[in-house]
């Protein structure tokens, strides 16, 4: 059951010129968040911008085991994300959640996990990596960004025992180019007979490419989509995405039927 918290900013870590991690005092949300779920967030008044914005929960914050809040990974793009980048400690942010369908994490014991992140699409993978580590799943993060300066939290994932495969557009770290190239190498040399579960979050063309690659190697995928979202609760019918088959695709709401979908269910050519 989602709750709305007028959450205080506990900290605002600016990771780069464009990215920041905003920690919010919303323990009631953090306690119930599962990997892949999201919150609807709004800073400031309704005069200029009336709608909240969806963010994957990045971290569930704990102090001595007690849940103290959540964080979100923000990238400056428009007016709202610029406001979220600029917030100071103590400012208030309206935060509604947790919302949406989470990733499936109860994999068969022999199945490996490959998480594929593009840019700010890293967001849902911190909590997913924790859940997979807790269940002892062998996990790889294939992570792409514009440059080495925009690859974040690598030590966090390493501490959890996650194998890192990196790619940057400018070649400053890892392979040069898109994440799908190293992903295909991973899929081509799969050791485990039970195969993998591919998880992806990032720009929609990347999600499509990842879902198609996974399908080509006969592996299942789960993608976390981002759509223009109005309410996050299923009321406005804005965030729809076509699912089904080519001939009978129909629109479902990404906020309540997703944001996590099986990559095979989305009709990408109609997106």
């Amino acid at each position, binding site marked *: *059951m*989602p709750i*709305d918290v007028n959450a205080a900013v506990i900290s605002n870590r600016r990771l780069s010129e464009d990215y920041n991690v905003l920690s919010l005092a919303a323990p009631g949300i953090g306690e119930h968040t599962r990997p892949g779920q999201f919150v609807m967030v*709004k800073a400031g008044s*309704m*005069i*200029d*911008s*009336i*709608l*909240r914005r969806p963010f994957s929960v990045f971290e569930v914050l704990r102090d001595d085991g007690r849940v103290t809040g959540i964080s979100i990974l923000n990238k400056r793009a428009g007016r709202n994300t610029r406001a979220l980048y600029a917030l100071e400690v103590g400012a208030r942010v*309206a935060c*509604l959640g947790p919302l949406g369908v989470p990733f499936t994490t109860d994999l068969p014991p022999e199945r490996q996990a490959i998480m594929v992140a593009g840019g700010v699409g890293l967001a849902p993978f911190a909590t997913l990596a924790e859940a997979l580590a807790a269940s002892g799943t062998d996990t790889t993060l294939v992570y792409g960004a514009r440059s080495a300066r925009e690859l974040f939290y690598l030590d966090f994932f390493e501490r959890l025992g996650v194998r890192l495969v990196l790619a940057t557009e400018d070649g400053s770290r890892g392979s040069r180019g898109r994440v799908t190239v190293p992903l295909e190498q991973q899929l081509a040399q799969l050791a485990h007979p039970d195969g993998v579960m591919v998880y992806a979050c990032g720009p929609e063309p990347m999600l499509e490419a990842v879902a198609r690659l996974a399908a080509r190697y006969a592996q299942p995928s789960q993608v976390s989509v981002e*759509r*223009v979202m*109005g*309410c996050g*609760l*299923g*009321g*406005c*019918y*804005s*965030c*729809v*995405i076509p699912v089904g088959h080519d001939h009978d695709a*129909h*629109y479902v709401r990404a906020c*309540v039927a997703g944001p996590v979908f099986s990559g095979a269910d989305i009709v990408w050519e*109609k997106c």
Partner: protein
Amino acid sequence: MDLRVRIGSLELPTPIIAASGCFGYGLEYEDVVDLSSLGGVAVKGLFLEEREGHPPPRIAETPAGMLNAIGLQGIGVHRFVREKLPLLRDRGARTIVNICGTTLDEYAEVARVLSDHEGVAALELNISCPNIKAGGIQFGCSLIGTADVTRAVRKVTRLPIIPKLTPNVTDVASFARAAEEAGADAVSLVNTFLAMAIDVESRRPKISNMLGGLSGPAIRPIAVRMVWECFNAVKIPVIGMGGIVDAADALEFMLAGSTAVQIGTTNFADPFVWSKVLDGMKDYMRRHGVARVTDLVGQIDTTPRKEVHA
């Protein structure tokens, strides 16, 4: 303190109604709001058949408002009465069903199906959706069309009927009169204002349908004016809406002549708006010694202002 209001034969416990198109089928919100605590729940517009709606992007934020062209994606009236209505009834919601049609016969048929089922409190006639090619606003932009749809539905139902008027006309009061003369129990207004927004970098329209309906606080003063015009033109109740964010906004609509109000866009940003508006309304009534909320309807003070000598 008496918050009850009457819309035709229908009595609502409070004047605050969830606006159609902004509250799904109501059940989406049952985790965050007790549906029986609302004056009414106006569910998403229903045609006879299911509809896919427009391709995304379907909304764009604009200053103090938003543009939408959802295209009335919906499950159709038959699935509604099977899958949603029993649950709404069970939750104690006073369900106002917003009905749509591309022809007069379709409006009448949807109304007939709904009238055969228990749990429908009233029918709101969608003759004002600006985002669909056939039906809707085609009727609502003509006085004859408005009267025809109202009469066609009147013939098949005893439920209170509430034509929802479009603001995309020159003289909205004449449409309220046309609805009243054709047998409407109330009118609701305003639906959204036909509008457009363009992304200058990509040179593309911000929503796939090119044109959409503008809602939110940006339209409120125009909506208040139109409610006041209709209140002065008809005897049936007027249900006002357009950018209500808080209790003061709701009270503004009531003073302009609304018997009840609907809240739409604000619910997207704040799904907990309902109790805030209700509490604020009660507080106002206490402060101003108002016993019955209906005592506020249309009570603008138009006596000359006292001259202030500095």
